[in-house]
């Protein structure tokens, strides 16, 4: 709840922050947008929020298959000052990207009962609710 409110605050502020420096350099910005068609962003360390319940966590690792396709991300939830955190591997299709914020389509109950991610070969993934 607090986290979401914080997001809303910064999202509302963002256009003003961006508008100021970009306004005088309109031409340069146009040239850039045609050259770099796809904007890429890092997700490591980014905050994610579970869609139904609004629990906040942080992406700490990406898991790929043999071909290098991203299959899952490890998300760290909860804890206080780093004690009592919980790492869960969630399948990649469960992630939803809405502009600046990342949602993940899994329920609180799923995270609660999911096995702790240990970084071993047999990682069981938390699946999206919609599956």
């Amino acid at each position: 709840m607090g986290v979401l409110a914080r997001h809303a605050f910064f999202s509302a502020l963002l256009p003003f922050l961006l508008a100021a420096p970009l306004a005088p350099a309109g031409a340069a910005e146009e040239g850039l947008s045609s050259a770099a068609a796809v904007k890429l962003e890092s997700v490591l360390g980014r905050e994610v929020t579970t869609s139904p319940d609004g629990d906040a966590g942080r992406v700490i690792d990406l898991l790929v298959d043999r071909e290098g396709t991203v299959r899952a991300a490890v998300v760290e939830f909860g804890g206080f000052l780093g004690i009592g955190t919980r790492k869960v591997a969630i399948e990649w299709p469960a992630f939803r990207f809405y502009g600046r914020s990342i949602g993940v389509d899994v329920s609180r109950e799923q995270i609660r009962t999911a096995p702790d991610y240990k970084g071993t070969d047999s990682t069981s993934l938390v699946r999206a609710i919609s599956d």
Partner: protein
Amino acid sequence: MPSALRRSERGLDWFTFFVADIQTGFGPFLAVYLTTQKWNQVDIGLILAIGSLAGLMSQLPAGWLVDMAPSKRRAAMLAVLGIGISALMIALLPSFLGILVAKLLHVASSSVLGPAIAAITLGLVGHAAVGPRLGRNARFASIGNGLAAGLMGATGYLVSPQAVFLVTAALALPTLLALGQIRESDIDPSLADGGLNGRTAPLATAPVAIGRLLRKRSLVVLTFALFLFHAANAAMLPLVGTEMAMRSDRVVLPLVGIEISMGQWASALVALCIVVPQLVVAAIAPGVGRLAVARGRRPVLLLGFAALPARAAILAINSDPWVIVAAQMLDGICGAVLGVLVPLSLADIARGTGRFNLAQGVAASATGIGAATSTAVAGYLATAFGSGTAFLGLAGTAAAAFITLLVAMPETAPKDANGLEANRTDGATL
């Protein structure tokens, strides 16, 4: 008590308070901060492993160094500066090299600061008064710990994880101011090393050979018991935290009726598990110090060591969040007894050797090795057999620590006129 000495003692109160504050952010929170700085898990694991290894190796040299240092106050000042600079580097230079240097600087500084505080205390008040004074230190340290946990937790959540380390660096300043209130001339350098009778015969005798200290039976037994104690203790709170995260259900706060999310509820419970023992320590530590003077060290040590297997057993068979929080009160008993009785017993044991701080380094090494063993073994047990088994394993280790003390630990309180006998009468009037 002359007013100048009182001012030094006030300075020591606040110094122990602020030292606890500036140490809070460096724990498991560092790993959280580094993930927000886009560090990967391998690098984070590597930094933490290097840090613990360096911590283990630095305790003995640091203790030896503090014994050798002519001014314990200056040693403490440099250590606080080191911790402040380390916090600033962590906030501003989160590259691998930057964090590595900062971590090593923090480890070295902490290894000096631990014994230096006890040395300043002993040098300030002498053997006869050091028990209650160590209790007072523990009280102020735990108030500092509790408040810092709240402050740092709120800062990390509301501002940014980076801000936690900026706040830590800023808090180094009041720490140094408090240290400045302790007058150098009030600290007897000979007493601070565990030498005899300080002022009357300042530095008349050289410290005894290190081997003679290390062969003392009471030191060997206490060191081994501390190793077992921390092998049982260190993994317990992290394991409790993980349990909380897994078992806490949807929660509606009583009175206000607001439903809070699982993550927030689990975090709040872990925060309670951290703060509750600090409150207990703050309440009972001075009493523990007086009790150790009135009744001797051995029974009080045994009491503290008995609380740990009891706590582990409760955690092994129970998963109700409120019972777990209540069981954390036992952790407060352990914290108060160890916080007071370990430096007090070491002061007894090292009395007249001039090697008080080296003895503290020995105890700190045992503590570190125990803690490292604990997380590794309990982590394995929890993964392979479940957390109930892990808690039982920890309970067994805690019981072994208690039995070690019960069977082999002698009373260390001095029997001469300046020691236990004289203080027994004090204790009776308290």
